[in-house]
């Protein structure tokens, strides 16, 4: 089943078209990486899903139920961590969780049990100070704890790792990985290594719509362009190769690049054997998400 389904979503601010017919499907049980550069419209999309922004047109369904703007009933399925979470700073972490539990109608015993479990998970169990004095990393963790409090079926995190140092980032990613068994996770980011680390599914938000979407593994194989690099012993040999095969390019370090689509690699190997060209290295390169996305964005 699909936890979240967005079809034909349009949203503009003033004369600026931010979302132009965005379609997105988040399967249940996935960790879904929602990638896009600054200003692409990630936050806008998420806020629309939460009924905090009114869409110009388009349909959004959460757990098969339609999302309406304003008083949004589907939010009971969702745990949300905004990009800059703001809490009542006069409370401490467990008071805040208790407040959250009460407004969602959890009973006292359940709140106490769940709070301590979550504070433990995010590593705030010994923090007794008021939220006023929390660092951004601590706020981010408390944000995840409050989002998970009423066992949401869908956890939406808006750039949960952006403001954090590498250690903090790893910890947040580990938490997201750990909650995967309990909930579907949708998180936005512009850090591709985070996505490669934990996501099962990804979508890239380009010019107001999704340019690639699917299982991370499928995308990686599907877009594998079979790139090769060759390093010859002598510079003159690489020039010969460049001249003979139009699809081969030579970079500053004298390394040759080509892809299977322009020349079959066996053809080139045969040429190398025939000419007795001695080579230092020949390698088939794995595409990184980054190279893949750069390619898509460039198109």
């Amino acid at each position, binding site marked *: 089943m699909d936890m979240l389904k967005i079809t034909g979503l349009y949203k503009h601010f003033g004369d600026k078209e931010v979302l132009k017919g965005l379609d997105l499907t988040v399967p249940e049980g996935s960790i879904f990486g929602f990638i896009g550069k600054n200003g692409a419209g990630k936050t806008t999309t998420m806020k629309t899903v*939460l009924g*905090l*922004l*009114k869409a110009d047109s388009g349909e959004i369904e959460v757990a098969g139920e339609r999302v309406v*703007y*304003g*008083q*949004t*009933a589907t*939010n*009971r399925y*969702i745990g*949300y961590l*905004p990009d*800059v*979470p*703001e*809490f*009542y700073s*006069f*409370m401490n972490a467990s008071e805040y969780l208790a*407040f*959250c539990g*009460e*407004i*969602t*109608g959890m009973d006292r015993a359940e709140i106490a049990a769940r709070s301590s479990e979550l504070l433990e998970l995010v590593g705030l169990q010994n923090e007794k100070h008021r939220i006023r004095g929390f660092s951004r990393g601590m706020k981010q963790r408390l944000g995840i704890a*409050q989002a998970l*409090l*009423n066992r949401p079926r869908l956890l939406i995190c808006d750039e949960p790792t952006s403001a954090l140092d590498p250690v903090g980032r790893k910890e947040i990613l580990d938490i997201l990985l750990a909650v995967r068994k309990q909930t579907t996770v949708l998180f936005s980011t512009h850090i591709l290594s985070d996505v490669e680390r934990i996501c099962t599914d990804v979508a890239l938000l380009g010019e107001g719509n999704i340019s690639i979407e699917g299982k991370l593994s499928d995308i990686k194989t599907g877009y594998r362009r079979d790139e090769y690099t060759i390093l010859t012993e002598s510079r003159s040999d690489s020039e010969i190769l460049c001249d003979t095969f139009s699809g081969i390019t030579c970079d500053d370090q004298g390394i040759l690049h080509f892809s299977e689509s322009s020349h079959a690699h066996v053809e080139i190997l045969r040429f190398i054997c025939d000419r007795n060209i001695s080579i230092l290295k020949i390698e088939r390169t794995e595409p990184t998400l980054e190279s893949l996305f750069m390619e898509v964005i460039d198109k």
Partner: protein
Amino acid sequence: MSNLAAFIRKEVTEHIRSGKITILVVIFIILGIMNPAIAKLTPWLLETMADTLAESGMTVTEVTVSALDSWVQFFKNLPMGLIAFILFESNSFSKEYQSGTLVLSLTKGLKRHTVVTAKAIVISTLWSALYWLSFGITYAYNAYFWDNGIAQSLLFSVVCGWLIGVFAVALAVFFSTVAKSNTGVLMGIGTIFVLSYILSVIPKLNEYLPTRLLDGNSLIYGKSSPKDYAAALILTLAVIVVSFIASIPIFNKKQL
């Protein structure tokens, strides 16, 4: 119901921990004491100034003050207390809009009308408590020094004063759901009051305007009777009810 209680509890905790309640209580105690104190000090003040006044040709005859003078002070200081109260409370919503704290509560499934209801309850209860505290202090001193009995329709006149505060609270809630900033809220309330003052120049209209309720003096001196205030009272009550009710659908559609 329990989420309403939870949000009210949050509001109260916030008031206590931020020290807002303490400051407001102090202000209203001072106002309550000031009314009889000023009345009590008037003869003494005039006496000390008698020589200066005599030089300029005025003779000071024996001045006697009564509870009435203290109540006159009460109604004179009422706008001051009300303004202080509104300045303290008008940012109740806008503060949350600016910091984004409501977003988390609402995306947890808290009903929007619960937020409006809780804030309206807390602010009007606080106003009532402070107002009657101030009234109680003045009343007690007056009873000790003089006799409250000479003030006519006293209860009615102070209820009018209390109601004008509830009116201001209702406007604060209403404008908070319309405007985004605290300035917007204050301007909204200010505009309504100024308008009411300006229109009260027209005698025919004066009878209906909420600001009429601030004129407790005519009542306690017996120059006018409660039934002259009926129209203003009904209109004010109507505005209060309409403001509270209208703010809920507006808030439901508000972009946060």
